[in-house]
C-alpha cells in the first residue's frame, strides 16, 4: 500500500509546550532572549558541566585558567621590557604599558577565535544530545559564548591584578567594561548561530575558520593599535568589530578615558542586528541541520 507523495510545503507550523505564541514585533525581536531566559536553568547546568569538563581531568584544575594567561603576560613583559621593540608608535612608550595593551588585545581576540573555531562543529559536538532528548539547540550558542567569556573573564582578572602590581593603580573606568561586554556578547551569539547552522551542512566552514581565524590576528589591532595605522587604513580597521572592541576596552582599562560614543552606538546597533539575523538564520535551517548531522 503506497500513499501519494505529498507536495512539500514551504513551512510547517509547530507549537509545543505552554509557551505563548504571541507574534507581536517586539516579542519576535526579543525571542532569542526570552528563549534563553526560559531555559536559564538548563544553560546553567550545561555550562557548569562544560566548565568543569575543561579542566576536569587535570591535577591543577582551574589554576590552568589562571596559569595560561599568567605565562602569556609574563612572556610579553619579558620580551617588551628588554628584548624587542616593535616599530609601531604605541610600542614606543612604556614597555609595561605596551605589554598590557597586547595582553588586552589577546584576551578579546582569543575569546572570539575560540568561539569562531568551535561554533561550526557545535551541533555535531552535541549530536547525541540533540538527537536523543528534547534539548533546545538554540541555547548551545549561549553556552558557547558564556564559556568563552568565562575564560576571558579570568584573564581580565589576571590582567587587572598585574596592572595594579606594575602601575600601582587601576583606572576607575574599568568598571564600565560590562558596557562593552554586553554588545560583544550579542555579536558573538549571532556569529555562533550563523556558523553553527552552516557548519552542520559542510565541514568546509570549520576548515575555513581554522585557516582564516589565526590570520585575522594580523588584521586585528592586537600587536598594534588602530592609531598606529595610516589615516586611510584606520577607517578600514574600524570595520573589524573585534578591533573596535579591543580599542574600546583599551581606552577604558589602560587609557582611563571613555570611548567615542558614536563608535560605541554603531557597534551596539551592529551587534544587535548580527544577533537577531544570526538567530533567524539558525531558526530557518535548524530543522534540516538536525536531520543532517
Amino acid at each position, binding site marked *: 500500500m503506497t500513499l501519494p507523495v505529498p507536495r512539500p510545503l514551504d513551512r510547517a507550523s*509547530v507549537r509545543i509546550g505552554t509557551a505563548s505564541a504571541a507574534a507581536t514585533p517586539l516579542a519576535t525581536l526579543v525571542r532569542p532572549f526570552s528563549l534563553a531566559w526560559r531555559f536559564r*536553568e538548563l544553560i546553567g547546568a550545561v555550562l557548569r558541566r562544560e566548565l568543569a569538563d575543561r579542566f576536569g581531568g587535570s591535577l591543577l584544575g582551574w589554576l590552568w585558567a589562571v596559569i595560561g594567561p599568567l605565562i602569556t603576560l609574563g612572556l610579553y613583559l619579558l620580551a617588551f621590557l628588554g628584548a624587542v621593540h616593535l616599530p609601531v608608535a604605541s610600542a614606543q612608550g612604556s614597555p609595561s604599558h605596551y605589554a598590557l595593551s597586547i595582553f588586552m588585545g589577546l584576551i578579546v581576540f582569543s575569546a572570539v577565535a575560540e568561539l569562531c573555531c568551535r561554533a561550526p562543529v557545535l551541533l555535531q559536538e552535541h549530536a547525541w544530545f540533540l538527537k*536523543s532528548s528534547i534539548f533546545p539547540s538554540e541555547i548551545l550558542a549561549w553556552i558557547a559564548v558564556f564559556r568563552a567569556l568565562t575564560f576571558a573573564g579570568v584573564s581580565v582578572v589576571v590582567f587587572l591584578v598585574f596592572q595594579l602590581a606594575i602601575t600601582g593603580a587601576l583606572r576607575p573606568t574599568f568598571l564600565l567594561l560590562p558596557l562593552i561586554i554586553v554588545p560583544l556578547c550579542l555579536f558573538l551569539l549571532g556569529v555562533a548561530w550563523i556558523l553553527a547552522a552552516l557548519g552542520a551542512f559542510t565541514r568546509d566552514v570549520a576548515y575555513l575558520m581554522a585557516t582564516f581565524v589565526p590570520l585575522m590576528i594580523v588584521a586585528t589591532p592586537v600587536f598594534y593599535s588602530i592609531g598606529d595605522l595610516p589615516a586611510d587604513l584606520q577607517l578600514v580597521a574600524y570595520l573589524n568589530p573585534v578591533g573596535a572592541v579591543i580599542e574600546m576596552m583599551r581606552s577604558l582599562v589602560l587609557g582611563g578615558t571613555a570611548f567615542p560614543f558614536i563608535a560605541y552606538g554603531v557597534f551596539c546597533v551592529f551587534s544587535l542586528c548580527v544577533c537577531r539575523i544570526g538567530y533567524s538564520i539558525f531558526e530557518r535551517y535548524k530543522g534540516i541541520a538536525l536531520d543532517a548531522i
Partner: protein
Amino acid sequence: MPSELTIRCRGLGKAFQLYAHRTDQVKQLLFGSFHRYYQEFWVLRDVDLDIACGESIGIIGRNGGGKTTLLRLLCGMTEPSRGELTVAGRVAPILALGAGFDAELTGRQNALVGGAVLGLRRAEIIRRMPSIAEFAAIGPFLDQPTRLYSTGMRARLAFAICAHVDADVLMVDEALAVGDAAFSRKCIAFMEEFRQRGTLILVTHDMSQVKQMCDRAIWIDDGGIRASGDVDEVTRLYQQAIDAEADDGARFYFESETDRALEG
C-alpha cells in the same frame, strides 16, 4: 483548538532529504531555489490525529512504519516537513532511554541536566533526587559516571528522571524492553498511576500491554494511520495483517529513483 485536546495534528508529514553526495547538500543550500538536489523520503504522510487530555494511546505497527518518527515529532525532537502540530503542556519523552546521557557525568549530574532539559528547576530536581534514586534503584552507581552503567541501569535512571518531572504528556517508546521484570513491573505501575492524571502515549510491540493500559490504539503503517480506534479491534486487525504479510525487505523500499541516486 478546544482546551481539552492535548495534541492536535493536521496533515503532519516528515520527509528526510536523501542526498547522493554530501556536497549536494551544500549545493541545495546555495542554489536550492533553482534545482532540487535531493530525493525525498517520506517517513510520515498526512497524519491527522487528535489526542484528548487524559487519554491513553497505544501506537502499534511494524518496524520502519513511522511510529518513532511520530513520537519524535510530537515531542519536538524533530521538525515536521509539513502540516500543523500543536502540543499543550509539558512533554516527557521516554525514547531511546539514556542515550541522551553524558558518559563522563555521574548519574546524579545527568539527572540535573536531564531534568533541566525537561523544564524542571535545579532546586526542584535536587529536592526530588532521593525519590529519583529510589525509583532507579541503582544504589551507589548513581554517583558513578554513566559510561560504567549497563544498558538496563541507564534505562532505569532515564525512566526515573522522566517519572519525576510532573509531565502532562508521557511518551514511552518500547522502553520496557531492556529492564528486568522487577523494573518493568515498577514502570507499569507508574504508568498505570500516571494515566489517572495525564496523557499517556505508548509505543510497543506487546499487544497485551496495549490492551491493559490504553483506551485507544493507533496502527501506524507505511507512514500513515492504517487503523485507529477500539483497542481490541485494532490489535486484532494488526495481528491478522502480521500473520498474512511476508517479512521481507519489500516494505523498506522507497522511490526507485532514490535507489539509483544513492548507488551512484
